[in-house]
């Protein structure tokens, strides 16, 4: 179960977002403005945050700036009625995951929760999860997750290993070898890639 922070000056919006997060089996705390939110972020570890932009006191953009300055890693989705190009660009420059305009549907919030969870998956836990997907031949879903891992963990051997493993299961051995090699190049001590690579090469040669 994940814990989210919902920041909006309108109580009913906070309640709606909290309700939809709850329907997915997760919990959330709420804050009515940026100051409250910042205090809570210092006190507790949140999986992700939903924030409005226009709020009395500390607004959403200032909040995002403050989080950035403190170097907190907090995947954030902005939920706002105001969606002009400048605002959206500014928010994305501050590293937000998504921008949802009001009014929003339950599905928009739930999709954003899934996106946040994808970002924050522990690489080892998610690698087990993705291996399961590959073995069940859910390739397109697995590819999405692997792409996320590539972007979040570009220096890790694991995304290359998973991509290679997927290609191997799909029957594309050349691509698989290429990515197993890339994985080993990133970490010469990463045994899963080394083992599968030697098996594959033995198979190819044999």
């Amino acid at each position, binding site marked *: 179960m994940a814990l989210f922070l919902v920041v909006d000056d309108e109580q009913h919006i906070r*309640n709606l977002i909290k309700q*939809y997060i709850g329907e997915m089996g997760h919990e959330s705390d709420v804050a009515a403005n940026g100051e409250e939110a910042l205090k809570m972020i210092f006190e507790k570890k949140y999986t992700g945050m939903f924030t409005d932009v226009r709020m009395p006191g500390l607004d959403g953009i200032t909040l995002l700036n403050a989080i950035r300055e403190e170097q907190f890693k907090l995947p954030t989705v902005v939920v706002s009625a105001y969606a002009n190009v400048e605002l959206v660009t500014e928010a994305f420059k501050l590293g937000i995951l998504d921008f949802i*305009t*009001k*009014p929003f*549907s*339950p*599905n928009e919030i739930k999709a954003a929760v899934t996106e946040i969870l994808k970002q924050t998956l522990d690489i080892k836990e998610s690698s087990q999860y993705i291996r399961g997907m590959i073995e069940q031949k859910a390739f397109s879903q697995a590819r999405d997750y692997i792409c996320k891992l590539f972007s979040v963990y570009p220096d890790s051997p694991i995304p290359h290993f998973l991509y290679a493993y997927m290609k191997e299961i799909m029957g594309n051995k050349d691509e698989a070898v290429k990515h197993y090699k890339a994985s080993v190049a990133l970490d010469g001590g990463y045994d899963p890639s080394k083992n599968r690579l030697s098996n594959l090469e033995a198979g190819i040669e044999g």
Partner: protein
Amino acid sequence: MKKRKSLYILIVGCGRLGSLSAGILSNQGHSVVVLDTDERNFESLPPEFTGFRIMGDSTEIEVLKEAKISKADLVLAFTDDDNTNYMVSQVAKEVFKVKHVIARVYDPSNLKLFHQFNIKTITPMLLALESLVGTFESIMEEEE
């Protein structure tokens, strides 16, 4: 009991029926958007309404897009004009592929037109008649 899914519901027309429906549905936890041409009509929304208000003309596609009609699970065409309700219902069904559409129809002679396009309807006069017949039946039972 199985927990109900939250829906995204667009109500076009914030008269008495629209505003009361908006209150009941948002109180049930659905995400409700109310659209009306006259901002003053939002004053009739009950305190339990926790959704969104959009002021605009529902016969304009851009206004319907602003209300994210394409994401709606249900559209209620509840203005006081059959023609507007017909147009909104048709656009919701045919252009935006909304699964469920219910329109308020004042003139029962218009019902056939709505039903031809698989639009569910509510007709206040027919509901009043049904109620009257029911009440009349109970009076008759008392008299017998």
